[in-house]
């Protein structure tokens, strides 16, 4: 059971906007920034969002992150077939003394 809670699946049609939630607690998301990772089958994860809402270079601006209290969200607008992947949230947990991940959300583009 993961420390951070994500829905196991999400879906949308091309062009739609989808959001993926990530719920934590005061020892992790409540105190620390959230990071999001995208993972395609057979590939290593890739950083998608850092410090809750910042995009690394190369990540399109139709992808955004937000955080409020002990929860965070990843939003993908203008959904494309190439967005079909697994998405993981992560944050440092001050009680653990290290990072924790959500269980991952499989995004399907219908």
């Amino acid at each position, binding site marked *: 059971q993961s420390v951070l809670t994500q829905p196991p699946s999400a879906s949308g049609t091309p062009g739609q906007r989808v959001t993926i939630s990530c719920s934590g607690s005061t020892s992790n998301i409540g105190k620390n920034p959230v990071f999001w*990772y995208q993972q395609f089958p057979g590939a290593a*994860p890739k950083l998608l969002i850092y410090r809750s809402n910042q995009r690394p270079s190369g990540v399109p601006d139709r992808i955004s992150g937000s955080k409020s209290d002990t929860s965070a969200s990843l939003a993908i607008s203008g959904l494309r077939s190439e967005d079909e992947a697994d998405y*993981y949230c*992560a944050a440092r947990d001050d009680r653990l003394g290290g*990072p*924790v*991940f959500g269980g*991952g959300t499989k995004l399907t583009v219908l």
Partner: protein
Amino acid sequence: EVQLVQSGAEVKKPGESLTISCQGSGNRFITNWIAWVRQMPGKGLEWMGMIFPDDSDTRYSPSFQGQVSMSVDKAISTAYLRWSSLKASDTAMYYCATLMGSSAWFDPWGQGTLVTVSS
């Protein structure tokens, strides 16, 4: 920027020992934490621990303390993950990644090393 290249896939028997490696390029290797992350088949990501190459300071996740050991040879910019006695439940993909400070900022990642433990 640091790039991380991991050693190749391994097939081992229960009880055997194993060391996998993660070699970095770029002069930032020794001044950032190198983390190890496990992904069991069909499952999510789990932080195992991390090592700071410059002084070998090592921190383990409680879930992995005593199960694995981490080391580094900063002269060749290589971090290692070692098992002394493998179990079938160690079958997984293992990733190394640069971890920025006290955060969950993993970037970049190695390509992964698949470890299969089977009799």
